[in-house]
């Protein structure tokens, strides 16, 4: 390439000429410049894609393999991403009200936050639930709560995302049952369950069962939904929490895609055809402050996944190769100090997600480092998305940062680092082994430790935390959850237990137990039978606990 050689030569004389002259007198701010995740960044980047072949291999066109530039041919020129604020707290009644408020503000999809007992399969009256009922999300014990939660919300009109993993099958069953009661067929409901257990083991912590039975439950859901709930996204393979736990951008993508590989392998092993379920897989990523690195991350993730599906799993349908993803702005980037600054951070992260081609987005509220978000703060967060969508102009052309020398270089760099991790995890024998071994956790912890050390030393500047600090002003308003809530839930469970058909509950739970003993049985229909009769979440999960055992975390510090 004589042309690019020419540019390379010119760069050298530029560096040794006028650059040196300036830096001799005024050194640059730092010796080395790096992205937020420690990828070196040069003074200037130069073109790296110089031929048509390279362009086609690396980028292609939106809606075409390898989907680097986006999964749809028109992207936001067709319609904006789904604005989906994650919400839920307290009782089903309170959350129902919040959902209606959000929809009245122009939100286009629901995203349900469950409290921790629900996420770990404990009823509100379980001793483990002490202090936790209704705290980080809504408490769901029985179908009754779910009916209240969606009261007045037509399930054929909304798409609903549920952040639920270990007991995903139970909550999905409840959702189907509520739809049925509204007269909506399960063929017509659409939404997503997170259903991603592997990242729970490595980063998020709401696991119940060991990997093997957990993967069985996931495959059961894939199979069931392929036939019965065709519009449902059966899994949202999540890097969000991996990043929150302190990983780098590269690790976020690498570990998420490696999780994806494990799920695909498991489903294929169970006898499914890859194209029968792969188009229902969706992803969930974080968006941090380093704008250009984040954009490159999303683009690299799309490219790697497309290659994995095509080359490793021999998917035929382009839909199976498309990495569709939801994004949430980075919770761990929010500061309790000067919380209004968070609005700015969220705006940058929103831009990163949109320039990166997200399919849906949750923007965090400025007060989330302090507690649950207030209605006011949630509105600003939603408005941030709307301003980017309607006012910024970045939505007019697809993948507008393509061709930026830096962004293309970062995309390549992230891709190659991601492949290294994926290969390494394959050497372990897959993600389950790599987790049991503690490898993944250790990698994340080391990055988190390094990050925090940099913050402590002031090397990494966080506005209001280690620079430009002011005496802490106490926030005016914080949303709190009524501590009486647990008692309210306990009363509700009591009422349900009194009025339900206990004989039927018992017999369905017995059937579930029996099914759990036989690995070839799909548990979804059995769980659906049990929830219809108002078996509690805890009762169902306890049956499975007894049969499957419980996972114990693997810590390497």
């Amino acid at each position, binding site marked *: 390439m004589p042309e690019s050689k020419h540019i390379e030569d010119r760069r050298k004389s530029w560096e040794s000429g006028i650059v040196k002259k300036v830096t001799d007198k005024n050194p640059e701010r730092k010796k080395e410049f790096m992205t937020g995740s420690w990828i070196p960044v040069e003074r200037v980047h130069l073109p790296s894609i110089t031929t048509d072949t390279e362009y086609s291999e690396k980028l292609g066109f939106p809606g075409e393999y390898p989907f680097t530039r986006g999964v749809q041919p028109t992207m936001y020129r067709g319609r904006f991403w789904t604005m989906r604020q994650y919400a839920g707290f307290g009782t089903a009644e309170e959350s129902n009200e919040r959902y209606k408020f959000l929809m009245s503000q122009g939100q286009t999809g629901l995203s349900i936050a469950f409290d921790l007992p629900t996420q770990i399969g404990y009823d509100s009256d379980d001793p483990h639930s002490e202090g936790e009922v209704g705290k980080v999300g809504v408490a769901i014990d029985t179908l009754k709560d779910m009916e209240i939660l969606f009261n007045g919300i037509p399930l054929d009109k909304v798409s609903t995302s549920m952040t639920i993993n270990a007991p995903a099958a139970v909550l999905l069953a409840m959702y189907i049952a509520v739809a049925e009661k509204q007269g909506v067929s399960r063929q017509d409901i659409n939404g997503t369950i997170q259903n991603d257990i592997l990242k729970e083991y490595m980063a998020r912590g709401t696991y119940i069962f*060991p990997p093997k039975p957990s993967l069985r439950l996931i495959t059961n859901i894939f199979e069931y939904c392929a036939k019965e709930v065709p519009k449902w996204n059966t899994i949202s393979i999540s890097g969000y929490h991996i990043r929150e736990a302190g990983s780098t951008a590269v690790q976020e993508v690498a570990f998420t895609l490696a999780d994806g590989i494990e799920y695909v392998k498991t489903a294929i092993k169970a006898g499914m055809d890859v194209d029968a379920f792969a188009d229902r897989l969706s992803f969930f990523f974080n968006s941090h402050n380093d704008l250009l690195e984040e954009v490159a991350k999303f683009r690299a993730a799309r490219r790697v996944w497309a290659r994995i599906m095509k080359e490793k799993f021999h998917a035929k349908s382009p839909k199976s190769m498309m990495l569709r993803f939801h994004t949430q702005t980075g919770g761990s980037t929010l500061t309790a100090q000067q919380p209004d600054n968070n609005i700015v951070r969220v705006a940058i992260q929103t831009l990163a997600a949109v320039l990166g081609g997200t399919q849906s987005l949750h923007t965090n509220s400025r007060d989330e480092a302090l507690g649950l978000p207030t209605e006011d703060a949630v509105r600003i967060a939603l408005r941030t998305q709307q301003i980017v969508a309607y006012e910024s102009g970045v939505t007019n052309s697809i993948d507008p940062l393509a061709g930026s020398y830096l962004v293309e270089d970062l995309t390549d760099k992230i891709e190659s680092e991601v492949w290294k991790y994926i290969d390494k995890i394959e050497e372990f024998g897959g993600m389950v082994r790599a987790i049991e*071994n*503690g490898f993944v956790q250790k990698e994340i912890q080391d990055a988190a430790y390094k990050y925090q050390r940099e913050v402590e030393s002031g090397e990494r500047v966080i506005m209001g935390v280690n620079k430009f600090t002011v005496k802490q002003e106490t926030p005016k308003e914080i949303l709190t959850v009524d501590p009486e809530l647990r008692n309210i839930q306990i009363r509700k469970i009591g009422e349900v237990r009194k009025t339900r058909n206990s004989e039927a509950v018992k017999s369905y739970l017995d059937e579930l137990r029996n099914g759990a003993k036989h690995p070839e049985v799909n548990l979804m229909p059995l769980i659906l039978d049990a929830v219809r009769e108002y078996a509690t979440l805890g009762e169902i999960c306890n049956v499975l606990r007894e049969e499957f*055992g419980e996972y*114990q*975390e693997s810590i390497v*510090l």
Partner: protein
Amino acid sequence: MIDLAEKVLKGDVRAIARAISWIENNRPEKENLIDALFPHCGNAQVWGITGPPGAGKSTLLDKIIEIERRKQKKVAVIAVDPSSPFSGGAILGDRLRMQSHATDEGVFIRSMASRGHLGGVAQATSDAIKVLDAAGFDLIAIETIGVGQTEIEVVGLSDIVLLVLVPGLGDEIQAMKAGVMEIGDIFIVNKKDRDGALKLRAEIEYVLGIQFADYPEKMKPIVMTAASMNEGIEELLTVTDDYFLKISMNRSLQDKRKTRLKSEIRQIFTQKVSAHVKQKYDFENRLDEWVDAVYKKKKRPYSLINEKINLFLRECNWL
């Protein structure tokens, strides 16, 4: 102090924990404490559990505790982990996998860092075993990573050593080379569901087979387990029971304990004598001065020390 010993004998958890701290911190009061407890020792079985990191030792122990508790036995665990050579600090996380027993009154778990202080962790562990023994625990398990000399010393304090190995860590052959094989009484191939488990078993059999070619009756047992799935644990406990019975019958248990006591008495003696002589010469403070003299060739190392010791002995009228 006597008060503390009395409380330990009654099984008071706080007192037991405090007594072990005294030992760890090498407080002078620990001597009277140990002496007060000593007559009550000798009833517990002491197991050493060792193996490479990631072998599943803690998980295995967790399941052993579960079964022993069903038999109403009181179980104590001492989990030893290395201290950081840089900061002297440590992260002690072994009890994590045994936390389901945290609230069981019949179970006591203590994490110890190797510290590398006077007498080493082995002596501290040995005294901590006495505290737990006197406090009425039926089974005391000492868990260490089987890598270095310190760890071998620590598990050497036990009546039975369970050596836990797993396929696929790449450590197993090294372990055999390092001589860890010698200290194992019972071999456990954990994670037996994994590829390579049978191969590992065959390798161990081969190595032991050579070792005991002339005494096949002394061949050591090998047990296959999958601790995380609760498989093979009952079988393991049958093997340990048989083994314990065997060594009690042929008196090798008593011999082993006596040997252990011998090295302990020897160590205490050496330590005490050395401490007295050191004190007499204000050793720590004068060491530099002596070194200086030797360094400048004004003194020679053996003559210097002999001179000092002879002086001491003459003063004692021993010479």
